[in-house]
């Protein structure tokens, strides 16, 4: 018998047949598939122990206490609310929940940068060391020789101690060209100064209000301290009636008990129309009004300027609806009227803020349970007096006038920007960019390569969310003083420093006369110096879960200090915030008369209030020929789009619906009636033009939009940042009209005349 090829083949056939009757081929196929899923280049996060760290969110002025879930104490994987924090009470908003994406995002500036080529050229930014950066910028500041005109600054949000330190630096350098990012808090402050004598924005004792009249406020869309508002209004078992006065059916309007659809921009006139009805029908609070001053003149003013038919015409609301809301408002106690369009960051006129405050005054809801009061601050110790006088006592300078004067003539030599993005918005970014060209040195303190950083000569990178150290005072709208310590939850990722530390180092490098006003070794020491005031006040307490929830449920809670000295306080502040819920709501009126005043005359002391009595709506209407621009463009602040100093994280951009953003096209909301007239179909590309410029958008037809009005969300249309945000959508700030309140020099914007045409 011979071994032939055929016999070998038979062997092979036998073997192959046999092997198929064993697990081998099947297991190997499965194993091979799994092997191919485990190749080395597969991105798998490292395993580690799950820990958490407590801190405070810095992504909006809401000041929510949060807990960061971390792996191996290093990598943040999730954000939840801190249950013992009196602001957040265990909850977070979508922006806070997306927080880690801001920290780990692609647009972070990782080291100090110096522009060595043409401004705006990203590739010619060169890394420089901190010492060199501080030395060079410090030398430039020192060379100004205390001449305030040669310096200007744009500061970021209110409410953080690093912002306060920034203001201090500018004053120490002898300049009053300090412009804070405008918000409705600016006019609220002045309205409060005029009518109560206390210069502070409005706060509301929401937990005790039974009737809440929101004058265009995005109550569930990020207004005030968003999580606190949400927890408070939803937390009290539906006992509170919410009425939304708004031109569109916003999510707040949809959730409200009643929606009053008014012409955009007329919310304050509606409020005074209500006020007139309340006065004429004798429904006002006799006690409170009796003890106020200026009522007689105010009553005449209302009767002359805001008769029912006029208000009805202007607001586009039936007279009987005005009467109905007025009677409701005056009939339910406590009732409160909220002010601050959108998130409260849209700056508006003194007139509007005073209208809201006056309406509250008429029903006795000023400094009373469930009402409005000037925002109380925590009893922080003052930093030592500066030789220079802080201009807080003075009338505010006009940001618009300032930009125009630079653009027209010449600019300051140095422009310092702290955690703001004025080259993008919210006020006159086009004008700002033109003015920049006249400034010799632009220095940006911030965390991201945004539009302003891109145009800067120096970028000094600040610690971001979860990394930074700062102090946060009473958040917008909260009725009792709060102090939160923003402490690092994880080690910083890059070569950055807390904004407060950067400002402190600049101060120390800007010459002895300036450095003298900044005697602390480091930023933490400066924060502790302020916190010492809380220790000495012997008031309030660091909150815990039980206390925070009890206060939020409206239970009268008295707290006593649970800290003996600064070390104890500082340690406790790492877990929750200090607050004083027992502080009385009653206002100590500081007006000339010592009483609540229905007039702006009290502003004469700071050089404003030219007119006696009550201001009037802005004299100048929106510019543009109504025939050429028959529509009104109204910008809309969405809950998920962060303020102009932050570019939205990818999670947030993804949350935009297909009828808000598709690929790079943003949608403008338009009523089907209006769209039909313009022959625009759902999704059609259109040219949205205003006298200030034009944008390309798509149209979304919705009944939620008021006919004749075009609504466009803010927060998109970035030209900086990274691929997740850059070039998506359009920026309404480029085409809005920025008006100047002649009473106060403050900027006001709420819209623009517009036209929509097919592209």
């Amino acid at each position, binding site marked *: *018998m011979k071994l032939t090829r055929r016999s070998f083949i038979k062997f092979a056939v036998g073997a192959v047949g046999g092997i198929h009757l064993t697990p081998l081929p099947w297991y190997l196929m499965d194993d091979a598939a799994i092997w191919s899923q485990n190749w080395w280049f597969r991105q798998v996060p490292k395993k580690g122990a799950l820990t958490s760290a407590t801190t405070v969110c810095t992504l909006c002025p809401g000041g929510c206490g949060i807990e960061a879930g971390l792996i191996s104490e290093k990598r943040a994987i999730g954000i939840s609310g801190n249950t013992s924090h009196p602001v957040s009470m265990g909850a977070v908003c979508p922006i806070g929940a997306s927080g880690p994406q801001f920290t780990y995002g692609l647009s972070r500036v990782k080291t100090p940068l110096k522009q060595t080529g043409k401004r705006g050229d990203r590739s010619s930014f060169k890394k420089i060391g901190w010492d060199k950066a501080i030395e060079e910028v410090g030398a430039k500041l020192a060379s100004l020789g205390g001449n305030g005109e040669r310096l200007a600054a744009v500061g970021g949000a209110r409410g953080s101690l690093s912002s306060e330190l920034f203001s201090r630096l500018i004053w120490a350098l002898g300049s009053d060209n300090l412009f804070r990012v405008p918000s409705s808090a600016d006019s609220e402050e002045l309205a409060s100064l005029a009518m109560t004598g206390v210069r502070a924005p409005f706060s509301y004792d929401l937990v005790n209000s039974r009737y809440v009249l929101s004058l265009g406020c995005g109550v569930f869309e990020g207004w005030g301290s968003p999580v606190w508002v949400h927890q408070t209004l939803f937390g009290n078992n539906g006992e509170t009636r919410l009425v939304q006065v708004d031109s569109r059916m916003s999510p707040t309007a949809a959730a409200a008990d009643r929606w009053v659809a008014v012409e955009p921009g007329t919310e304050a006139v509606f409020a005074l129309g209500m006020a007139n009805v309340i006065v004429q029908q004798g429904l006002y609070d006799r006690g409170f009004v009796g003890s106020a001053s200026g009522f007689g003149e105010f009553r005449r003013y209302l009767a002359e300027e805001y008769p029912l038919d006029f208000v009805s015409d202007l607001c586009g609301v039936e007279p009987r609806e005005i009467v109905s809301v007025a009677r409701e408002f005056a009939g339910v106690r406590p009732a409160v009227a909220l002010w601050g369009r959108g998130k409260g960051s849209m700056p508006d006129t003194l007139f509007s803020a005073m209208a809201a405050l006056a309406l509250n005054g008429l029903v006795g809801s000023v400094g009373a349970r469930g009402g409005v009061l000037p925002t109380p601050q925590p009893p922080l110790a003052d930093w030592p007096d500066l030789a220079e006088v802080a201009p807080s006592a003075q009338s505010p300078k006009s940001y618009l006038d300032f930009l125009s004067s630079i653009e027209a003539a010449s600019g300051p030599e140095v422009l310092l920007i702290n955690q703001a993005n004025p080259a993008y918005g919210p006020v006159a970014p086009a004008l700002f960019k033109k003015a920049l060209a006249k400034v010799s040195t632009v220095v940006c303190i911030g965390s991201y390569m945004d539009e302003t950083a891109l145009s800067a000569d120096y970028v000094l990178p600040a610690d971001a969310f979860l990394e930074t150290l700062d102090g946060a005072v009473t958040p917008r709208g909260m009725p009792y003083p709060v102090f939160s310590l923003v402490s690092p939850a994880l080690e910083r990722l890059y070569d950055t420093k807390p904004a407060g530390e950067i400002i402190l180092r600049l101060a120390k490098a800007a010459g002895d006369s300036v450095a003298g006003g900044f005697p602390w070794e480091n930023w933490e020491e400066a924060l502790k110096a302020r916190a010492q005031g809380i220790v000495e006040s012997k008031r309030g307490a660091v909150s815990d879960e039980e206390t925070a929830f009890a206060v939020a449920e409206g239970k009268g809670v008295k707290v006593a200090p649970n800290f003996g000295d600064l070390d104890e306080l500082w340690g406790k502040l790492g877990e929750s915030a200090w607050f004083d819920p027992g502080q009385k709501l009653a206002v100590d009126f500081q007006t000339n008369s010592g009483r609540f005043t229905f007039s702006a005359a009290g502003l004469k002391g700071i050089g404003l209030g030219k007119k006696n009595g009550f201001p009037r709506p802005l004299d100048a209407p929106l510019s543009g020929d109504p025939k050429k621009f028959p529509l009104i463009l109204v910008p809309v602040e969405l809950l998920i789009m962060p303020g102009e100093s932050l570019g939205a994280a990818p999670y947030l951009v993804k949350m935009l619906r297909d009828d808000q953003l598709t690929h790079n096209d943003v949608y403008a909301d338009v009523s089907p009636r209006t769209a039909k007239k313009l022959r625009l179909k759902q999704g059609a590309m259109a040219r949205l033009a205003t006298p200030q410029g034009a944008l390309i958008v798509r149209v979304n037809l919705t009944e939620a939009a008021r006919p004749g009005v075009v609504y466009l969300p803010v927060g998109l249309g970035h030209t900086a940042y990274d691929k997740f945000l850059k070039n998506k959508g359009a920026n309404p700030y480029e085409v809005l009209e920025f008006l100047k309140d002649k009473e106060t020099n403050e900027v006001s914007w709420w819209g623009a005349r517009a036209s929509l045409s097919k592209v």
Partner: protein
Amino acid sequence: MTSHEEKRSDKDTIGWILLVIGFVGALFVGWVIFPQVIFSKKTQPVNFSHVAHAQKAEMSCEDCHTFNDDGSYNGIPSLGSCAECHGEAQGETAAEKKFVEEFVAKEKQVPWLIYAEQPDSVYFSHAPHVKSAEMKCTGCHRDVTKESLAPPLYVNRITGYAKTIMKMDVCEDCHADKGTPNDCFTCHK
């Protein structure tokens, strides 16, 4: 007749024998050799005796295998829990001596081999299974109560996963029986 014709009528016996040999050989390789070879045998860095702890030391399962406040589960306790008793040797075994000298004294976490470890893509939480469904440990895990020697871990050389790993179909079957969701995102987040 030529030899050529003889060959054509040859039954090729060798070939057929080889076919059978090949067949049987393949069966042997597939059923006996392959399972031996495909897995590598690994032993725990130091022996752990469940019998010694459960019986001699009279401990309960929950003394080491517990839920944390946030709902996560401690499958294998960390060195700290062991050191609470084993700061010094409690008995006389060589394994414990090694444990105390090489790990506790040096504060080095023991790199325990995990028999039930699932791939990264799988999300599993003990809480709904142990607390809500009240399953017994032995519903998924081997019965350790009689073990004085930690069994070796057989690891597939190609995939890196344990021989004892519970694959997806076992989870799916039980979920289907109980009426709990078998959606992809239930386990793959």
